[in-house]
């Protein structure tokens, strides 16, 4: 093991699998910067939470790092122009998302000069904590491990919450992906400078860097950069999904994150090493988040990691890595275990895109047709959440969603271990995703139904009350009349009935009057003229008929 790597008591989280790594494919060449592109498509939703709202209009001139999307609501961060140029449009464009839906994007035509806004390094030591977080929110910092949760929220230690341990996540447990590996090899001290800021903001006492032991070069570089400080660089065993936040926390500290909680509940905050690096750039260099490192690997000419401006079309990024080779069968965004199929290669790189994996038939053969579950229990042994995936599958398949919840469906992190080991090749995770979305949909329906019922009940109550009030009023009037002797024989009940009848007749009249032939509303002028002409002819005929009759 590399010198400086700290030996530490480690804990083995349950389950996990050992898929083939394919990491060395893309680590032979250093990180290269993508050449400037003529056009960028920058989605306004690149993070978890509310999308940013555009603050530019077509025709506007922008500089690199200029805010083009303002954070909207609390869980949101800013979006910035990746280069200088002119805004062409603010419109719906394909984005990298499993759904294949479009999203609002700012399209920027580069002017080739790549002029930046004046960088504003932050005086993080002396700045007010809340002001610093606000700056990071504006600068667009979000977790670059794939979840893209706004970093400023995670950097808030809270009023009472103690977060003594900061973990830098360099595990990178997904096969094929190497962007964190390369970043740690090449920019270790910058990562640690970012971590210093995180530690300061969280008031953390300890900083641990967890790196899977299949990355000896990254371990050595990080350990060298950490030499002389009290940052512990720890080699953790290579087990997928060892880079999951809860899993890495357990591996390094033995602390078990509660089922519905966060790692901060056990005093640990976890950040991806890439996020630490972007924080360094934001704080020390004053640059907002406009680029990230992306691994382009698989069936491409020269697999490698590239520093890519956010908004670069994925097809261009694949081109920069030698292009897809003949026989490519599609692209996965992210890793093979949790990534999703790309629908449209014109979609841009966002903060969430850590890897573009071009598939071929050799490494991604079509899945054999699924057979029935034989309850072998392989899935349960592989599940890092210690669930019983075969039971969840059984109930999800039979749409017994209540049972799926009592078997802790929502503890499933969709890591894919169960599907990976299933000898019947059942797409188990798809069933869990289906069950989850059905439950969410039902939850929404139920809320809507509850609301409707409440409204209906209130309406019934109001109508009954109005009826009663009216009856009382009429009774009062009748009795008044009775007292005055005007209508001696009228009893209040008859008067009430008469009034209701009169009202009903009146309503019916109004309804008849209100009914209009709907299909002749809003006709275009020529149609209307045509109809008028026909009506006029009809009138003529009618009057002619009348005259001939007489």
């Amino acid at each position: 093991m590399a010198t400086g790597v700290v030996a530490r008591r480690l804990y083995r989280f349950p389950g996990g699998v050992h898929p083939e790594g394919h990491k060395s494919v893309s680590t032979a060449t250093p990180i290269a910067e993508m050449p400037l592109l003529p056009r960028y498509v920058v989605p306004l939703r690149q993070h978890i939470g509310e999308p940013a709202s555009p603050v530019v209009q077509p025709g506007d001139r922008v500089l690199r790092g200029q805010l083009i999307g303002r954070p909207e609501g609390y869980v949101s961060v800013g979006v910035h122009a990746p280069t200088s140029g002119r805004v062409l449009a603010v419109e719906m464009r394909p984005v990298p998302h499993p759904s294949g839906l479009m999203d609002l994007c700012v399209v920027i035509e580069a002017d080739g000069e790549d002029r930046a806004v004046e960088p504003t390094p932050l005086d993080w030591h002396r700045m007010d904590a809340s002001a610093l977080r606000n700056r990071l929110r504006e600068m667009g910092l979000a977790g670059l491990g794939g979840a893209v949760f706004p970093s400023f929220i995670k950097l808030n230690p809270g009023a009472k919450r103690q977060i003594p341990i900061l973990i830098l996540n360099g595990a990178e447990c997904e096969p094929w992906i190497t962007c964190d590996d390369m970043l740690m090899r090449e920019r270790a001290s910058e990562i640690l400078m970012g971590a210093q800021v995180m530690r300061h903001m969280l008031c953390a006492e300890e900083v641990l860097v967890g790196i899977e032991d299949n990355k000896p070069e990254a371990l050595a570089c990080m350990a060298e950069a950490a030499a002389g400080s009290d940052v512990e660089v720890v080699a953790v065993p290579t087990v997928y999904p060892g880079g999951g936040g809860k899993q890495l926390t357990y591996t390094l500290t033995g602390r078990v994150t509660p089922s519905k909680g966060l790692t901060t509940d056990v005093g640990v905050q976890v950040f991806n090493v890439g996020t630490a690096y972007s924080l360094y750039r934001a704080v020390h260099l004053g640059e907002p988040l406009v680029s990230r490192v992306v691994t382009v690997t698989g069936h491409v000419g020269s697999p490698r990691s590239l520093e890519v401006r956010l908004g670069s079309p994925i097809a261009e990024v694949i081109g920069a890595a030698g292009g897809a080779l003949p026989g490519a069968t599609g692209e996965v965004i992210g890793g093979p275990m949790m990534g999703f199929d790309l629908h449209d290669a014109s979609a841009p790189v966002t903060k969430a895109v850590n890897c573009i994996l071009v598939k071929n038939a050799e490494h991604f053969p079509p899945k054999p047709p699924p057979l029935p579950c034989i309850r072998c229990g392989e899935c349960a042994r592989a599940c890092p959440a210690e669930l019983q995936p075969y039971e969840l599958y059984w109930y999800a398949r039979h749409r017994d969603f209540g049972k799926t919840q009592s078997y802790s469906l929502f503890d499933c992190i969709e890591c894919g271990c169960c599907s990976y080991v299933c000898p019947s090749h059942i797409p188990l995770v798809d069933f869990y995703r289906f069950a989850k979305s059905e439950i969410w949909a039902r939850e929404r329906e139920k809320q809507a139904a509850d609301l409707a019922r409440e409204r209906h009940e209130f309406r019934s109550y109001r109508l009954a009350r109005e009826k009663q009030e009216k009856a009382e009023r009429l009774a009062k009037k009748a009795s008044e009349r009775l007292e005055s002797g005007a209508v001696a024989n009228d009893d209040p009940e008859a008067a009430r009935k008469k009034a209701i009848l009169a009202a009903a007749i009146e309503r019916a009249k109004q309804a008849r009057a209100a009914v209009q032939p709907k299909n002749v509303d809003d006709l275009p002028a020529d149609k209307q003229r045509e109809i008028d002409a026909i009506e006029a002819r009809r009138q003529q005929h009618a009057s002619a008929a009348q005259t001939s009759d007489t």
Partner: protein
Amino acid sequence: MPGSPHITAQHTSVRSVMLKVLAALIPGILVHAWFFGPGIWVSLLVCTVFAYVFETLALAMRNLPLKPFLTDGSVLVTAWLLALSLPTLAPWWLYAVGMLFAVLVAKHLYGGLGQNLFNPAMVGYAALIVSFPAYMTQWPAPMDLAGHTPDLLESIDLVFAGQGAVSPDAYTAATPLDTLRTLVRAGGDAAAVMQEPVFGHLGARGQEMVALMYLLGGLLLLTHRVISWHIPVAFLGAVALTATGLHLLDASRHAGPLFHLVAGGTMLGAFFILTDPVSASATPRGKLIYAGLAGFLTVIIRAFGGYPDGVAFAVLLMNMAVPFIDAHTQPRVFGQAGKDRERP
């Protein structure tokens, strides 16, 4: 379009699981042929043929694709397990009836692969021992004790053409379990009875070596992670404990633990039958309860029941309890406190 993950582990399939189970049975089969003659090949073949006949028929009637289900290997495992549980050299229709119950009733009437509540081979065995008890006790004697051991051609003749001129007495004998039962009920002392040659070194001449080979095959399945340790350990432990308890209570009527471990279907049951994942409990604690109770029942049925061996009935009884056991032995989910766990 199916979502993530986009890769699956190599060489995992239902077929490979089943083939491993079959491979692990081979040492036991070879030793069986060595001690009891080539009759085993005939019964294996007859069971296999009827297994595929009934499986094809059921799949065709259910409008299911033939290829994936005929090649998954599961029906072959059922056929071999039933053949190894039945006396060799029985008439062919006995195997046919057994396979009919195993494949059509126990497997396909319950919904086919993965859906059966009961172990198919054990359903076939139970149907036969209830319907044709006389045939089920005529086991070939070990070759060195038998007056005559039929060779392969004679075996085929016996299975297909009936007993013919050769008297079954010439080549069959009561099994050690049967002998012990009969003689002890007749007033004999267990220890004295077990001096007879049919009891061999450990408790069953010939059969004890077959049992050791099943143990070997079972250990191979364990090392290849086809089965987990829970079921064999709990089952064999419970058999040994219960037998020891009875032996200590009354040594004159009950044989010791070693005999119960090697006799009858104990080893086959421990590693190949109780471990059938479809009909077994699947939670770790559930497996211990399921197999432990099955071991206890096996010895109790052998000691006090109406049939010589108890493995099949113990397995079927515990199969029934599996949904209940599983529902109440759900492991704790990572990050969930023990008492917070909702009962499913």
